[in-house]
């Protein structure tokens, strides 16, 4: 029952924050931090446990909470990131009104996600899923203004997804007579393939929407960019990964390997979608000029990698997918937090064209952002490298070079937009209006520091997380990977981080020594520049405006978010249609009487002539 008490504790805590916050403003922050930390601690202490409990009966369904390695890893990530972003919120939300509401919802989201990963049956999975949806809606709307359409988009997509999932669950229930995950996995083999595919499609819509797989991605960019930054971190880091969790649960826990391998057509479709999800958003990210929107598109693309990993279905790819989930959670959260710090200090400016040169003012944030970007690109010695390496390798060796191409080219796109982000915020000229920008406060630095450390740590010692992941994929029925502390051993190409680390270190030291031996350089002002003799006015002395101008020109002509346009068009069409429909209520009683008699007459006429009833 400990799981149940934990959830109850968390929910009560969330309410407590709200009501305490109304009367004692200081307490709510302390409470929020303490509760989220305790949650993290609880989950961490549950390591290695494997059990499930029946905590509630709902309309004849037994609801379970369960924990095992698979859910533990996700739960840990959720509570950890939740904790960090609440710490980050302390200063981010300081001056905002109504932050008790914010903290409460923040905890709601975390608890709901915790509930999702701890759910032992599909009904409680769904319930927590919905709680997550609406609390997220409230949080996205929090900043008002342009956040409102964004959250509308989110919630509408979300409702579509969750309802299709509900249908899927109930359909599955009709076929198997159970919704308990551990039982489903035994029974599902007796179901015919067509039904399984139908269920998979229904679930895929739900998970695909949450995971922002193209063509269901359109809610994500506005939602991520408009949400408060600490929450963007959660949103991007873990919330959308609930889709990943769902896919893993569906494919490998419920349906199981021996069936999923026979659904080749389906997996191919999903893989292709994943590939599109990698390439398309990557290039759209390059075109963005809003820091958070850029990161949002990047999230879509990275979610594509994860999706690719888990739908490709080899042990390497699944391990890579799960690992990339973990990594992405960390580095994307870090980057959102860093952007959040910038936003906090510049009072809400995130437009890449008007920033620049912040490295002098906020060096720590720069470092965090750089590490995050390196992880995002997947440079060796950061965590992103290992997970991407696993995915590429299996894609290449299992004969899917085109998918691998998508993944690799996506990485190059990643470099472009990551560099744009870093360059336009931190490098280049510092505009005069930002002369007095302060450093990020400690409560912002601390989460960023922790996350950066983890990126490097996992990058050098990928064996540690991979061991957990190994256990998960073994529980899915795969062979374990041959994991060492520093990498992976396999017959078709090994990975050994320690070599790279050692070489880098040695070369680095040598080069630095070499560099030091040269004549000492002189530090100069940012305006002390070589401009080939031409005069450039100060305010124009910065090349941030449309950084990739040639590429923009090239891509803008054909690269648009057609799917979003399509959705918006159809929404407008539906609105128009709805407006037309209600014109039947004309306001004239005579027509209403006509409807009534028409109804009666038609019924009689039909029955007289054809006896249909």
């Amino acid at each position: 029952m400990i799981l149940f008490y934990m959830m109850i504790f968390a929910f009560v805590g969330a309410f407590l924050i709200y009501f305490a916050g109304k009367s004692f403003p200081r307490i709510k922050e302390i409470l929020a931090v303490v509760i989220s930390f305790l949650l993290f601690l609880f989950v961490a202490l549950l390591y290695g446990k494997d059990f499930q409990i029946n905590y509630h009966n709902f309309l004849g369904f037994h609801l379970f909470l369960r924990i095992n390695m698979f859910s533990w890893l996700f739960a840990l990530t959720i509570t950890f990131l939740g904790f960090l972003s609440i710490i980050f919120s302390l200063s981010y939300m300081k001056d905002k009104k109504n932050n008790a509401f914010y903290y409460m919802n923040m905890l709601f989201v975390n608890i709901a996600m915790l509930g999702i990963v701890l759910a032992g049956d599909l009904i409680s999975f769904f319930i927590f899923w919905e709680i997550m949806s609406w609390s997220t809606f409230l949080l996205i709307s929090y900043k008002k203004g342009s956040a409102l359409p964004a959250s509308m988009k989110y919630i509408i997509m979300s409702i579509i997804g969750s309802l299709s999932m509900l249908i899927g669950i109930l359909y599955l229930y009709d076929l198997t007579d159970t919704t308990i995950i551990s039982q489903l996995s035994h029974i599902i083999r007796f179901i015919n393939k067509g039904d399984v595919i139908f269920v998979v499609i229904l679930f895929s819509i739900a998970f695909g929407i949450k995971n922002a797989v193209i063509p269901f991605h359109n809610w994500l960019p506005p939602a991520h960019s408009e949400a408060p930054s600490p929450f963007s971190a959660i949103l991007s880091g873990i919330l959308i990964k609930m889709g990943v969790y769902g896919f893993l649960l569906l494919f490998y826990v419920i349906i199981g390997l021996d069936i999923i391998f026979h659904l080749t057509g389906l997996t191919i479709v999903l893989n292709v979608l994943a590939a599109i999800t990698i390439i398309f958003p990557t290039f759209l990210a390059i075109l963005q000029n809003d820091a958070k929107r850029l990161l949002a598109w990047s999230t879509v693309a990275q979610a594509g990698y994860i999706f690719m990993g888990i739908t490709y279905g080899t042990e390497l790819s699944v391990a890579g997918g799960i690992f990339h989930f973990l990594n992405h959670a960390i580095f994307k959260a870090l980057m959102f937090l860093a952007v959040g710090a910038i936003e906090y200090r510049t009072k809400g400016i995130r437009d890449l064209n008007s920033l620049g040169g912040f490295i002098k003012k906020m060096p720590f944030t720069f470092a965090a952002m750089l590490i995050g970007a390196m992880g995002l690109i997947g440079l060796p010695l950061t965590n992103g490298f290992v997970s991407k390496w696993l995915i590429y390798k299996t894609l290449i060796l299992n004969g899917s070079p085109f998918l691998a191409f998508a993944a690799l080219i996506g990485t190059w796109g990643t470099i472009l937009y990551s560099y744009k982000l870093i360059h336009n915020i931190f490098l280049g000229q510092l505009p005069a209006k930002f002369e007095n920008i302060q450093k990020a406060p400690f409560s912002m630095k601390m989460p960023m520091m922790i996350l950066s450390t983890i990126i490097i740590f996992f990058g050098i010692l990928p064996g540690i997380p991979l061991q957990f992941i190994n256990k998960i994929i073994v529980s899915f029925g795969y062979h374990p990977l041959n994991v060492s502390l520093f990498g992976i051993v396999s017959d078709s190409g090994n990975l050994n981080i320690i070599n790279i680390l050692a070489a880098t270190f040695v070369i680095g030291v040598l080069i630095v020594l070499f560099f030091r031996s040269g004549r000492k350089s002189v530090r100069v002002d940012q305006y002390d520049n070589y401009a080939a003799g031409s005069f450039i006015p100060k305010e124009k002395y910065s090349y941030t405006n449309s950084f990739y101008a040639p590429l923009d020109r090239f891509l803008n002509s054909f690269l648009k978010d057609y799917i979003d346009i399509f959705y918006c068009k159809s929404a407008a069409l539906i609105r128009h249609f709805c407006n037309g429909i209600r014109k039947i209520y004309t306001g004239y009683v005579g027509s209403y009487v006509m409807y009534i008699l028409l109804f009666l007459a038609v019924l009689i006429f039909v029955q007289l002539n054809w006896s249909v009833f």
Partner: protein
Amino acid sequence: MNILLMILSAIISLVTGMFFLGLARKIMAMIHWRYGPPIYQPLIDVIRYFHQRAVSHGFIFDLGIIISLIGSLLVVFFLPLGNISSFSNSGGLLVILYILILSPLGLALSSGESANPNASIGISRKLILTLSYEFVLIIILLSLMSQYQTISLQEIVMLQARKVWSFASWKLILPGIAYLLILPAMLGFRPFEIAGASQEISAGPSVEFGGKYLALNTINHGLLHFITIALFVNLFLGGGDLFGIFDSISGTFWGSFVSLIIFLIKMILIFVISVFINAVFPRLRLEQATKYILYYPLSIAIVGLIIVVAIN
């Protein structure tokens, strides 16, 4: 042993890189009907730069260029040079592909910090150009990896030695051609000398580099020449193999030596060809270059990949 090999390959690459830089200038001069500088001129330059005054724009300005050089050197260790390979079994081609990123990224960071608009423009161009040829390069690598069913570069080299050079095999000739077509772009030669256009944007990314920064940049440049061509030789020309003539002495010191020599000779040949192209063509605009790359080499490479996949 490994450390020795590392040092050896580092030295080889540095020397060869410098040599290439010198060679390029020499050949250009000869084409221009001039005498040209001595072939060791770049080395002299580097040493000279080291003692000149340099300006720095900040910590990342220093760090970036160092990262860039680390990246380049690191790649060298992953490349088998003839029979010499330090740790080409630590992740294979994928790692190479990734470490290749480090160098431009470091340079970009460094020149970004310099806050010079020309540098920023240069970087922007360079990244876009890189992106476009990377399309082709990735496909080429994928065709090779799919064909040989490995991600280890060393194994690819060995398999070529056992059967036939990739460039000579009909399945892989298209990727080879594509690689040759993008080679000037990778080397930063004309017609793709867009990022570092000295007349237009004052040498682009390296505009603010002076003194030891320029020295490191030059070394880096040389290394990049080396890496690009070494990769080609390894991938398509069988590395240090010469039709199996020296198979009998492989494994011995002399075997390694011979293969290294053969390797270097192949590299020089390829390099010379590229330099000729450089001399002949004028510089393209970025859009033109991107379009060119995305039309011809890319389509060739894709056809190549399709062939490989279809046959497998």
